[in-house]
């Protein structure tokens, strides 16, 4: 049976030696067999070794890496023993890679057509004359529009989704037996991701190509793969069918991981997984997961579990898997306590805000012209109440972060007013705001690597707001910093660390602490969890929720992830191209009727559930600038009713008390249309 396998990995360990000449393994004793035509997902958080494993299948090791034990073979040829020539034959031919960020993986100085025909030349029998036609055929196969003009384009001229499709076409050129996909949809918008995934799924079915799909996103894997391999700290901890792994995981890590994913249909916080995975070389003699495992027993710390078979045919690396099997499916997360919201008190009101990025160019200045463009963000009116969390959702370019920056006074507004506490008019620029106004509104950024000064210790980072707002000095500074660090579950011993000495989750906690040490009333969260692993994300969400209850803080929570917003937000506002489409209580927005854009977004969300099927109702084209007249969503709307969408800005319709939709279609009709679709 082993002879027929496509890819066979036996006891593979890969590692590197550090400066102290110690061997640090990245992958440890991997045993994995992939049969022809199989679709296998490799799941794990960052640092789990999943990409290294996938690339090792192609006989590729990154620079300092070397094979410590074991082997990997493709069609019975031991990959690491092949000559350069033989490897060139396999790579891109029988075994093709679809890379993570196609925008950077396509050579910038070569036209699309040439890059694909290079693959054809190397790996197919297509003659030189027939190659252009075959290139067009491939581009059509990956559903790219207008392939004849596309072949003459350079990579930077395409959108992210198009680049990814080109990478797929390039991989298909060699008619591979197996495709390795290294996080192929990470970084793409929800709708684009759903489209690319459907394409990949269809290709796997049509061509019978085996797929190894590397991702941190269980939703994507649930959609594409039949089998899932879960990795943790360089080991395989669980290997089974999608259904088994996602619905009834028998490894504690897989259980926790699944529990930490926010679900679109559940208005509750996902359960956090505390701690962090061990660093390379830091694993003791026991189980790698022992320190974070809630079920761990004494022997878990002493004895490394082996990969063993369950009755259902899964492979699991856990001493206690039989116990885990008996546990109920992961229960619901903790319900969010909403008692603090007082609808009477208004914290912030955005009144008809418009923001424009374009400045007058040199010629405009010489000729005295005013910029006559359509503003990037327009017509935004939202009232935010004390203690509530309002989610601001949209794809990239929807202007959601821009609005936050305008509230924080970093970007000037072109029109409109920002009113604080019902009567204070906030000036557009930070320079004109009072110290107290500044203190009451704090901003937390997406990426803590960028928002924490790398040259400052945690103590100095926290001292900045304390000195500025409260004029505190030594002992008080110290006490207050320690106190807030304890509140964010870090503790005083973090004071003298530099950001580079912290993990991603710890950094974001410091950023949260820096915001809360100012005792703010309103905290603006700009994609605060999107740079983090799922389990860390759950912990940060839990932290934000707890702090909100302790301090009675109001949040504006910006995210592209509808499920994350669902977990935390009381009200949700949807933005497309800088214009509001729908706003209302979270429960209402996530149920019918929806604005067509909300419908498209909700339909494209991938849930870690093998039975959830995305609904693709609109094209995944990328719009670069908002429409000057009519509905913002007119170009992509699946429910366009006619010219009115292009000529008239749709009115706000009241569905419920607070639930508003901006569409020309009456909401009752909209509900009927959408109900019909659902059935």
């Amino acid at each position, binding site marked *: 049976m082993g002879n027929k396998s496509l890819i066979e990995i036996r006891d593979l360990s890969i590692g590197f030696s550090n400066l102290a000449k110690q061997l640090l393994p990245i992958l440890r004793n991997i045993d994995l067999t992939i049969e022809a035509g199989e679709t296998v997902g490799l799941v794990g958080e960052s640092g789990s070794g999943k990409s290294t494993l996938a690339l090792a299948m192609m006989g590729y090791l990154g620079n300092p890496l070397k094979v410590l034990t074991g082997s990997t073979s493709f069609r019975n040829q031991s990959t690491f023993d092949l000559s350069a020539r033989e490897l060139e034959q396999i790579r891109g031919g029988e075994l093709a890679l679809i890379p993570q960020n196609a925008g950077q993986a396509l050579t910038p100085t070569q036209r699309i057509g040439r890059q694909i025909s290079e693959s054809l030349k190397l790996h197919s029998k297509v003659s030189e004359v027939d190659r252009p036609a075959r290139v067009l055929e491939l581009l059509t196969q990956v559903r790219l529009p207008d392939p004849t003009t596309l072949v003459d384009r350079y990579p930077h001229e395409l959108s992210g989704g198009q680049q990814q499709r080109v990478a797929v076409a390039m991989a298909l050129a060699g008619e591979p037996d197996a495709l390795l996909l290294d996080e192929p949809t990470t970084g793409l918008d929800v709708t684009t991701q759903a489209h690319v995934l459907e394409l990949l799924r269809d290709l796997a079915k049509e061509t019978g190509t085996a797929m190894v799909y590397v991702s941190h996103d269980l939703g994507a894997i649930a959609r594409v793969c039949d089998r899932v391999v879960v990795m943790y700290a360089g080991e395989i901890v669980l290997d089974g069918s999608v259904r088994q792994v996602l619905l009834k995981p028998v490894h504690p890590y897989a259980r926790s991981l699944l529990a930490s994913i926010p679900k679109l249909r559940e208005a509750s916080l996902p359960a956090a997984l505390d701690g962090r995975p061990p660093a390379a070389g830091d694993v003791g003699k026991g189980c790698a997961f022992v320190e974070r495992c809630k079920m761990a027993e004494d022997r878990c710390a002493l004895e490394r579990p082996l990969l063993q078979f369950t009755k259902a045919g899964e492979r699991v690396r856990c001493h206690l898997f039989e116990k885990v099997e008996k546990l109920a499916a992961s229960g619901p997360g903790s319900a969010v306590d909403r008692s603090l919201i007082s609808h009477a008190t208004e914290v912030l009101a955005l009144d008809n805000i418009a923001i424009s990025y374009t400045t007058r160019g040199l010629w405009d200045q010489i000729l005295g012209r005013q910029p006559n463009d359509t503003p990037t963000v327009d017509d935004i009116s939202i009232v935010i109440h004390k203690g509530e969390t309002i989610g601001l959702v949209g794809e990239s370019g929807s202007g959601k972060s821009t609005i936050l*920056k305008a509230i*924080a*006074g*970093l970007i000037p507004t072109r029109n409109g007013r920002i009113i604080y506490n019902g009567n204070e008019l906030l000036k557009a620029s*930070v320079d004109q*705001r009072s*110290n107290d106004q*500044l*203190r009451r509104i*704090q*901003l937390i*950024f*997406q*990426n803590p690597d*960028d*928002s*924490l*000064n*790398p*040259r*400052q*210790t945690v*103590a*100095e980072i926290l*001292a*900045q*707001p304390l000195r*500025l707002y409260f004029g505190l000095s*030594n002992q008080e*500074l*110290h006490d207050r910093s*320690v106190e807030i660090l304890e509140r964010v579950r870090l503790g*005083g*011993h973090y*004071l*003298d660390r*530099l950001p580079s000495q912290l993990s991603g989750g710890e950094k974001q906690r410091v950023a949260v602490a*820096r915001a809360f040490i*100012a005792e703010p009333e309103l905290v603006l969260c700009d994609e605060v969890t999107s740079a983090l692993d799922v389990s860390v994300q759950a912990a940060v969400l839990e932290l934000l929720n707890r702090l909100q209850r302790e301090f009675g803080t109001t949040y504006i929570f910006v995210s592209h992830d509808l499920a994350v917003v669902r977990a935390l937000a009381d009200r949700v506002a949807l933005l497309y191209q800088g214009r509001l489409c729908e706003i209302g209580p979270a429960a209402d927005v996530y149920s019918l009727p929806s604005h067509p854009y909300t419908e498209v977004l909700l339909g494209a969300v991938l849930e870690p559930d093998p039975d959830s099927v995305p609904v693709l109702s609109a094209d995944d084209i990328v719009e670069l600038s908002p429409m000057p007249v009519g509905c913002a969503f007119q170009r992509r709307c699946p429910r366009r009713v006619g010219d009115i969408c292009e000529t008239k800005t749709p009115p706000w319709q009241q569905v419920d008390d607070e639930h508003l939709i901006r569409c020309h279609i009456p909401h009752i009709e909209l509900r009927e249309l959408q109900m019909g679709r659902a059935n």
Partner: protein
Amino acid sequence: MLTTFQSVTKNHLQDRLFKVLRDVMSSPSGAIGVSLVFFHLVLAVISPFIVPFDYREISSLLMLQGPSFEHWFGNDHLGRDIFSRTLLGGREAILITGIATPIAVIWGSFIGIFFGLVGGRIDEFAMRIVDAFLSLPWILKMLVLIVTFGTGMGVLIPTLAFFYGIPVIRIARAATHDVVARDFISAAKARGHGRIAIIRHELLPNVLDTLMVEGAMRWSWMLLAFSSLSFLGFGASPPTPDWGLMIADARGFMSFAPWGVLAPVVFLSSLIIGINLTADALAKALGIDRIQKAPV
């Protein structure tokens, strides 16, 4: 947990300094570079006390004598001891460039950071002026001033400091632009810190690395400029022992007394190479891409 904030900060600076120094010394080229620079600095301080002969002592008997037991590097065309003159030959150059370099780096950084922060059209126009200055060869700019005002230290130091500060403006400005785009600056702005506070706490610590490496580079270019000027007769004036001047003097007798050229050549080159190796290793240790540019 009784550490105060100040001590925490200082310890980190010290730790970092030690770490950088250790990294510099751990690469062979860095170790060679630092040793060469150290050797020359020590020599510049102690050379007046250890030279065997007076550098001015002329002797018609010893004219163009080859190396001997008494005069290790031989004697020049006036019979002066080349060994003594070579040991002393870097003092003026190191003194002048040692004063001019920090001045150049400081004023250049100051202006560069200012324009980097201001941005917009003012910045763009200022960069055109910088470009205009850079488009003139350094030697022309310097010579015009030296010929007009003389060659004393009082002229050379400000002249070198001024012209070598101009390229620093560009470097400091580019480094500022890189840092300003980052979120921690936005965070400080949103909190409402003043400009000065942002520069001091957020910006400076992050551009300092670049400026340190730039300083080392400026020093090397300046030494090169000073010795070239001396060589051309516009730098150190006789009878001061100076490597550039010594090479110029000995060139005429090169065919039959090459030792007069060789000793200052080796000393001057070793100092400049030492500085460059140090700068390279420093850049590597600090993780900066040292952009290689033509010696403008």
